[in-house]
C-alpha cells in the first residue's frame, strides 16, 4: 500500500507543481464557453437550450488536454520501466495515475462546469445535476483517457492519436449524462441516465486498468 500512496503523492505533485496545475484545463474550458455565444448567437433562449449539453461536452474535451503527458514523460525518462518492475502491481499503478489525473484536472473542471452552464443561461435548477455528471463522468474520462494514453505510447503523434482513440469510447458516458440533463430540463425522470453513467464509470474504473497495464507492458518490453 505504501508505494501506491507515495506514487499518488508524486503524481499529484507533478500535476500541480509545473504548468499551473489545473489552470490550463480551466482556461481552455473558459475559452470554449466564451466562444460558444459567438458561434451560436447571443439570444438567451438559444443559448439556454444548448448550455447544459455544451458544458458537459466541453468537459469531455477539456479532460483530453493533459492526457498526453500522463504516461509519455515516464515512458521517455525510464520511470515507467521502474514502475513495471516495482513492488506494486502495474494495474494499481495505472489506476493511481488516473486517479491523480482526475483529482488534478477532473475535480476543478467539475466545479467549473455548473458555473459555465449558468453563465450561458441554463436554469439554476440544472446546476447540481451538471456538477454530479461532471464529477462522475470526469472519473470515467480520466480512466478511459488514461487507457488511450497508454495505448498511444511509442507512437509518432501522441495527442491527436489519443483523441482519435478515446473519443468514440466517450460516446456512452456522454450519451448517458446528456440524457439525464435533457430529461431533467424537460421535467422527466432523470435518474436512469445518471445511474447508467455511474454504472459505466464503475465499469471503466474497474476494467480499464487491466488494459492500461497490458498496454504499458507492451510499450516497455
Amino acid at each position, binding site marked *: 500500500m505504501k508505494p501506491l500512496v507515495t506514487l499518488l503523492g508524486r503524481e499529484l505533485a507533478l500535476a500541480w507543481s509545473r504548468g499551473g496545475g489545473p489552470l490550463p484545463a480551466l482556461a481552455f474550458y473558459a475559452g470554449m464557453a466564451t466562444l460558444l455565444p459567438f458561434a451560436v448567437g447571443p439570444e438567451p433562449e438559444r443559448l439556454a437550450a444548448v448550455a447544459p449539453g455544451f458544458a458537459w461536452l466541453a468537459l469531455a474535451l477539456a479532460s483530453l488536454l493533459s492526457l498526453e503527458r500522463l504516461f509519455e514523460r515516464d515512458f521517455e525518462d525510464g520511470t515507467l520501466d521502474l514502475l513495471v518492475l516495482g513492488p506494486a502491481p502495474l494495474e494499481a499503478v495505472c489506476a493511481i495515475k488516473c486517479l491523480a489525473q482526475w483529482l488534478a484536472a477532473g475535480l476543478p473542471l467539475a466545479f467549473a462546469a455548473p458555473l459555465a452552464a449558468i453563465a450561458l443561461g441554463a436554469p439554476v435548477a440544472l446546476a447540481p445535476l451538471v456538477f454530479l455528471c461532471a464529477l462522475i463522468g470526469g472519473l470515467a474520462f480520466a480512466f478511459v483517457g488514461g487507457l488511450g494514453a497508454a495505448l498511444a505510447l511509442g507512437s509518432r503523434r501522441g495527442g491527436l492519436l489519443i483523441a482519435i482513440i478515446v473519443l*468514440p469510447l466517450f460516446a456512452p458516458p456522454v450519451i448517458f449524462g446528456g440524457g439525464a440533463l435533457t430529461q431533467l430540463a424537460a421535467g422527466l425522470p432523470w435518474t436512469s441516465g445518471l445511474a447508467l453513467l455511474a454504472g459505466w464509470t464503475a465499469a471503466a474504473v474497474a476494467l480499464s486498468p487491466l488494459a492500461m497495464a*497490458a498496454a504499458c507492458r507492451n510499450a516497455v518490453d
Partner: protein
Amino acid sequence: MFAFLANPDRFMAFSRWAAPMFGVLAGGLMMVGLWLGFAAPEDYQQGDTVRMMFIHVPASWLALFVYLCLGVASFLSLVFRHALADAAAKAAAPLGAVFTALALITGSLWGKPMWGTWWVWDARLTSVLVLFLFYLGYIALRAAMDDETKGGRAAAILALVGLVNLPIVKFSVDWWNSLHQGASVFRAEGPAMTNDYLIPLLLMGLGYMAAFGSLWLVRIRAEVWRRKAMVLALKAAEA
C-alpha cells in the same frame, strides 16, 4: 479449424484456392439475390425503395460481423502471439470500415425517400457511426506506430476494448425509442417478413459474407507476402 490454419504454409495453400472460390460464390449468391430482390413485389408502404434493404441490411450485418472477426483475431494474436492472427486483424480493419461506410451511405440514401431526411441522430445510426470511428481509431493506431509488433499488440488491446461497443450498439436500440425500426429478422417469434423479401435478403447476406471472406483471405495473403519481402530486403541489406 484454427489449429489447422495456424500453420502459415497450410494457410497459404488453403487460401490460394479458398479466396477465388469464395469470390465466385459471392458473385453467384449476389446475382441470384439481386435478381430475386428485383423480382420481389413492391412493398405496400415503401414501394420500390424497399429494395434498398437488400444492399443496406447485409452491409450493416457485415459491419458488426467484421468487428467480431477483428476482435477474435486480436484476441488470438494477444494470447498466442501468433503472427498470422495479427495479420488477419490488420487485414480485417479496412474491410470492416468499408462495410460500415457502405451501411451508413446506403442507409442515408434509403432514409431520404422514407423518412424525408438523409440523416437523423437516432441511437442506431449514431452507434454505427461510432463503430465506424472505432475502425478509424484502430487503423490510425496501427499506422502511427513505428514498431510493427508493438503497434499490432496495442491495436489488439484497443480492438478488444472496442468489443464493449458492440453490445452497446444493440442496447442503445432499446434504450432509445426512435425513428429507426426495431429488429425484424432475428427475433424470438421468427422473422416479421414474407419469404418474398426474406430469401433474397438472406442470399445477399451470405453473398456479402462470402465476398468478405474472399477479400479477407486475399488481404491476409498480401500481408504475409509483404512481411516476407521485408525480411528478404533486411537480409539483402545485411549481406
